[in-house]
């Protein structure tokens, strides 16, 4: 019953959204578990030259390697630092192994530890319990991983201890999805990871999408909305915004790019050149996509595999 003439749209440009919600020293979460990684938003952070970010990301992969090389990040919070199955990340390894050019502060967790930090953040809990970490060396190198004692006794009257992790509440969380309406209702399918938890945990959120679509399209399938309007600060239309990762049903993963990255990031000069050519010397992501070339875009094309419609039902008056 909302009067759409009066309701505020959350549609923004990427430059505006990044400059409005990211700031030097901010804690920034960039999520997307292999699927729908918001690469374009990461590149815009690099373009705008933000510094001293605490970057929170479960799988620290190519986008993190790039942001490190551009000196945006001073602290990394993560549970996996690797280029999936396609080799290693040169910049991250240089900083961790040789403090070259500088030392990287690294808060290391396991995947579920990171998931639980987002769960605590989204639920505004002081901590979140998980059955991990007993016997592992992870708590010895990360003093944020602590223990509490259960108030419920076992049969023998003893009380179990359990490890807990603290909440993470990013200043801004950035994720990518297939589509949204102008109000910021985010619809996503395929792997949905922990995008919703990362957004709800944050003070502000930016969601890049392949398409801004009509209200009617979104409302024809409300269960597809994984993040409701009220949790979203800005929604930005960025086609191919997740390349070299993929967006289910829109384009496939650029496995060649992942393979090539090891060689590029292994060589400082090549890495500098790559950042210059693809980020600093491009005005925005549309130019990056243009430079990708038609051959690459064709290579990543996917065919059709449509879902069968389901019936939400309507009242017969």
């Amino acid at each position: 019953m909302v009067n759409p003439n009066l309701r505020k749209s959350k549609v923004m440009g990427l430059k505006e959204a990044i400059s409005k919600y990211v700031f030097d020293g901010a804690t920034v979460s960039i999520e997307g578990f292999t699927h729908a990684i918001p690469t374009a938003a990461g590149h815009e952070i690099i373009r705008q030259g933000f510094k001293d970010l605490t970057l929170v990301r479960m799988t620290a992969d190519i986008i993190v390697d790039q942001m490190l090389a551009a000196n945006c990040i001073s602290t990394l919070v993560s549970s996996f630092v690797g280029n999936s199955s396609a080799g290693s990340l040169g910049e991250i390894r240089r900083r961790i192994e040789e403090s070259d050019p500088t030392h990287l502060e690294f808060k290391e967790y396991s995947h579920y530890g990171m998931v639980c930090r987002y769960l605590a953040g989204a639920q505004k809990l002081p901590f979140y319990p998980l059955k991990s970490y007993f016997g592992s060396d992870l708590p010895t190198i990360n003093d944020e991983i602590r223990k509490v004692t259960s108030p419920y006794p076992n049969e023998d009257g003893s009380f179990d201890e359990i490890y807990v992790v603290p909440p993470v509440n990013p200043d801004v969380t950035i994720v990518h999805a297939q589509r949204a309406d102008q109000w910021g209702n985010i619809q996503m399918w395929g792997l949905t990871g922990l995008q919703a938890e990362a957004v709800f945990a944050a003070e502000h959120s930016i969601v890049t999408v392949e398409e801004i679509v009509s209200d009617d399209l979104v409302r024809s399938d409300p269960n597809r909305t994984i993040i409701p309007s009220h949790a979203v600060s800005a929604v930005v239309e960025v086609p191919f915004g997740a390349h070299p990762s993929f967006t289910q049903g829109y384009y496939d993963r650029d496995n060649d790019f992942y393979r090539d990255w090891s060689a590029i990031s292994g060589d400082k000069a090549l890495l500098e050149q790559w950042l210059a050519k693809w980020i600093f010397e491009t005005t925005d992501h549309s130019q990056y996509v243009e430079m990708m070339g038609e051959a690459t875009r064709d290579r990543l094309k996917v065919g059709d595999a449509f879902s069968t419609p389901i019936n939400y039902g309507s009242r017969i008056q």
Partner: protein
Amino acid sequence: METLAFSVDELLTVTAARELAGKNVVFAGIGLPTLAVSLAQETTAPNIEVIYESGVCGAHPSALPATIADSVLITDSEAVLNLASLFGYVLQGGRIDVGFLGAAQIDKFGNLNSSVIGEWENPSKRLPGSGGAHEVLANAKETFVIMRRHSERSFVEKVDFVTSAAPDMARAAGSRSKAKGVTRVFTQFGVLAREDVGQELQLTGIHAGIDVDTVIKSTGWNLKVHPNLEVIANPSAEELELLRTEIDPTGMYLRS
């Protein structure tokens, strides 16, 4: 000008809708709260996103819903959340500006009882209980309460059972809640209000033709009257028009 005829329910709905001016995310129950939100969306608060305890966000129902889970609330809505997300991320996550509640009993600090009349172990009347009411009062930035029958039996010095605790009591017990608790109570006599924790609910607004003594006599605690007590303007022709022709055309809730 001619004076308009209106029902108590219309009066309560209009008064509540006016208080929603500028609010964004509202947790509404069925009935008058839903009508108040709808009216506010058309008048004082166009940006309101209404959220129901069932998990529906941004409902656009084709007919007035009979329950918070009515199928007409789901079809054509903007989002449907499961209960772990609704209670964990939205409510406890602190994203609700205003929550609407009712109760069998309320005290001067806005403690609410919806559990029992009498002793919990052996009640003279068993009521439904908390449902999500406890979490609404604990987590919404502020809570509006609608009580259609303002009487000494419902406005009491001490509630029989604290189902939903005022943040005043919660903080004293160790909570870090920043919720303000009950800030408005809408009754057939007027509006009781407070701005934040620690204050008593006072009579701040009174409906035209109501005698202050009647309100005081109908309140089980020593009700304070705000120095700037205002007489609440009757529903306007526009407000009644919207309610009767657009929002509840069949008079499903606004029976006169």
